């Protein structure tokens, strides 16, 4: 079983940086490594993106490699497909989660299916970056967690980072992948800091083999013995806090699994953890109906049935449209809702 690595190995050579900066550094490293990597999106050039994730890259790599596109998401993804067919590796920014739908057709009908349709002759090695999730007090369409739409679609990989280290490495791994990758960035965690340890070389000459984990591996963030919390992206921090709170009160021992990859799921690690603890909570910001957490619940009951002490519980957004931000404090799962679910499980 993978355990904490990288940041937790923490050496004095590590650098503290935000997830936003780590994503930027990951893209920079990928662009330095491969001249075919191009960034595309609305406002990604001079402005550096509305979240500044691509800041400084157009200045350093030029307008041919960091392309400010017209304001048309289907056009961005559709033209990126053409660039990919020509041998480029486009990294596309969708400005906000709720703006991806105009591109949905091209993502689902073309990006996802091109390799399969061509019996492997054509590859679309594209990364579609989507800042996702709520908790930032935004207006409508700026707080969604729509990852299950894409995880449902065969042909796409769907990943999400929760830490500085993962932001840096996973971005590069996603760009290097010959498959299309939907890369979900936890926007409310953009400015949280973590340690990026690039070893004694300080980042010079590092290659992807140095990455602490593969792109499709889950990681145990907190080891525990009573309940497994399967989660990802912005909720990893919430699960972590729940585990710490329980520990401080000598409560149940919570194991936190950061899925990192939503398609494929690291089912080996998931099953191993649940078989050990016998209890499972699937935690996400997304509405629970027909979701990643639904899939986790189904998978765990199908494969860990005899090890379960209680049903799998899902903790997520209520099954309503993302509410006006004055509600989001109660809409989004928090530490208390996680602990409540833990108590429910232990009461069986």
């Amino acid at each position, binding site marked *: 079983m993978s355990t904490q690595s990288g940041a937790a190995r923490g050496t004095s050579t590590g650098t503290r940086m935000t997830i936003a900066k780590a994503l930027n550094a990951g893209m920079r490293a990928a662009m330095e490594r491969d001249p075919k990597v*191009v960034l595309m999106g609305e406002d990604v050039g001079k402005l550096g993106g509305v979240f500044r994730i691509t800041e400084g890259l157009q200045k350093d790599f030029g307008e*041919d490699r960091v392309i400010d*596109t*017209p304001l*048309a998401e*289907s*056009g961005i*993804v*559709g*033209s*990126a*497909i*053409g*660039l*990919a*067919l*020509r*041998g*480029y590796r486009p990294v596309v920014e969708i400005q906000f989660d709720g703006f991806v739908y*105009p591109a949905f*057709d*091209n993502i689902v*009908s*073309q990006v996802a*299916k091109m*390799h*399969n*349709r*061509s*019996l*492997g*002759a*054509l*590859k679309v*090695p594209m990364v579609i970056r989507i800042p996702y999730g709520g908790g930032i007090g935004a207006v409508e369409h700026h707080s969604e967690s729509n990852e299950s739409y894409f995880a449902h679609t*065969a*042909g796409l*990989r769907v990943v999400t980072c929760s830490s500085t280290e993962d932001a840096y490495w996973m971005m590069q791994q996603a760009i290097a*992948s*010959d*498959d299309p990758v939907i890369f979900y960035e936890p926007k409310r965690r953009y400015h949280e800091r973590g340690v990026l340890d690039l070893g004694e070389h300080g980042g010079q000459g590092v290659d992807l083999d140095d990455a602490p984990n593969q792109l*499709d591996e889950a990681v145990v963030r907190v080891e525990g013995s009573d309940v497994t919390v399967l989660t990802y992206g912005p909720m990893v921090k919430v699960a972590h806090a729940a585990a710490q709170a329980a520990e401080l009160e000598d409560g149940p021992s919570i194991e936190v699994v950061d899925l990192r990859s939503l*398609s*494929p*799921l*690291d*089912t*080996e690690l998931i099953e191993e953890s649940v078989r050990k603890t016998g209890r499972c909570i699937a935690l996400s910001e997304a509405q629970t109906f027909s979701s990643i957490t639904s899939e986790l619940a189904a998978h765990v009951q199908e494969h860990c049935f005899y090890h379960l002490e209680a049903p799998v519980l899902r903790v997520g957004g209520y099954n309503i449209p993302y509410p006006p931000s004055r509600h989001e404090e109660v809409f989004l799962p928090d530490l208390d809702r996680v602990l409540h679910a833990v108590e429910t499980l232990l009461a069986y």
Partner: protein
Amino acid sequence: MSDDEVAPSSTAPVTQDHQPPERDITDGGPDMVQFLAADGTRVELTATNEPYAAYLEDVDQAAMKDMLRDLIMVRRVDAEGFALQRQGELGLWPSLLGQEAAQVGAGRAMRPQDYAFPGYREHGVAWCKGVPPENLLGMFRGVNHGGWDSNENNFHLYTIVIGNQMLHAVGYAMGAARDGDVGTGDPDRDTAVMAFTGDGGTAQGDFNESLVFASVTNAPVVFYVQNNHWAISEPNDRQFTIPPYRRADGFGFPGIRVDGNDVLASYAVTRHALERARSGQGPTLIEAFTYRMGAHTTSDDPTKYRISAEVDAWKAKDPIDRMTAYLTSEGVIDDAWVEQTEGEADQLAARIRKACQTMPDPPHEEMFAHVYAEPHTLIERESALFADYQAGFED
């Protein structure tokens, strides 16, 4: 167009709130570039067609004969596809009947390095790009989703979702420009991309976004709209009130209407647009004014929505009759040549028929083989489960 063709009077239903303008849909209007009239006579040079005449100067009689041969072969391929569907060998066939000249003219204007992004009716372009016609059949037989290697002939797989391919073409063209394969002056290097769609496709958001992207990036792309006048059952006036070629002006590049039933005009205009693109002057939109003589596909029944007089009027503008009449009058071909060429076409059809009938069903495990380029644990697990389950039936 010539005056001797009588257009059918409009039978469009007139309702109080929607009254389409009286129109003659066989008349391409004064802006339409034409070199061969419907009766096969050469059209005099005018301000409309004169700018493109130079692109025919090096088209000698042998080349024209080759174009007619292409038209005949492509029509025969199409007829065979239709017959194979009717006999249950194919699930579906989208016929190009009537659009042969629009496609052969465009296809022959392309150079080998030029890349085509077709819809799903571009059998004539496929022919010109060297894709074996039998390879088109697999997807309609249900053995694959596209049975040719796009990069072998620079002819992308058919795209069934109307309009998506227009954007792919623009992106590919942006890539060609980034690769430095535009404006070098080297005729074997400079590259353009052609994006094919129809009148219905012009309504799609992707079509309009592709024009925007091409315009602002000055992409070396030619948009080729075959206006065959019917998007399944919907006529032009359900898709636009301004004809497609005029839309280009609003996007900042030239739009040209060409007689899509005139192979010489289609060739000349496309060649002009491709040369513009290759030399770095940016995109062009061509509207090839033509007609879908058959049904939308073999699943369609056009008698429910259009009148036979309209079809008859277009039959008088047939692209093959026109070119045959022209080359016969010029003494380039005779009846014996036509007969011999049709014999070759029959041989090709027999080859296609045999290839179709002997096309093996794919092994079922192939369903799982190409979903991802790199290992994906869910697919691996399901593939193994499927193999185990199937193996259970072997005894």
